[in-house]
């Protein structure tokens, strides 16, 4: 695609702003502080650790029906490969995409 890298005659606005160290650091610290605040805030609202008595009927269904409906005693495995196999298909596709991407990057040297 030619030498698109060439000279860059336009002014360095926008993107360039992010690379001034001090400013970037300040913004970064602010963002992180906000993030930490949000996470700390969330600690007050999530359910009590180790307490699963409310609203896990989906998981209960998996536990109760895993053996007779999928024939698998390992419930996690039956979820991964049977109840939610579409997700697993997607996951394998992600792996495939990553491999093709890596092949794209290194194929110059012929694997």
């Amino acid at each position, binding site marked *: 695609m030619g030498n698109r*890298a060439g000279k*860059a005659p*336009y*002014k*360095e*606005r*926008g*993107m*360039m702003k992010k*690379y001034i*160290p001090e400013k970037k*650091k300040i913004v*970064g*610290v602010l*963002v*992180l502080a906000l*993030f*930490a605040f949000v*996470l*700390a805030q*969330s*600690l007050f609202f*999530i*359910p*009590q*650790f*180790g*307490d*699963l008595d409310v609203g*896990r009927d*989906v*998981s*209960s269904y*998996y*536990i*109760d029906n*895993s*053996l007779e409906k999928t024939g698998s*005693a*390992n*419930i*996690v495995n039956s*979820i*991964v490969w049977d109840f*939610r196999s579409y*997700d*697993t298909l*997607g*996951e*394998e596709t*992600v*792996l495939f*995409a*990553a491999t093709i*991407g*890596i092949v794209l*990057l*290194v194929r110059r040297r012929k694997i």
Partner: protein
Amino acid sequence: MLAYIASMLLLIIGAYTLVMKDNLIKKIMGLSVFSSGIHIFLISLGYRAGGIPPLLTNLNFNQISAIMVDPLPQALVLTSIVINLSITAFAMAIIVDVYREFGTLNIKKLKSLRG
């Protein structure tokens, strides 16, 4: 509760590394730590006090869902780990190329894009 706090700390450490460090490898490490924080958080959401692993054996065959930990977050984490692995692997491959093209791993020195 400690598990939640630990996972939140991991999230913050990961986000800090991701945002503040300039070295690309460190950034990717931050990303991994960040994802691990999410994974630990998910797993601990599924913990039941005194629960047993979600495996059916002869010993626990009659005991049902009331005493097992939640298996669904574990399945989600299994999927998410693979996705995270793919991202990390691809990132490493591309960082090799970054080093070849630019001779540096410092993200501040990558300046071919602007405007």
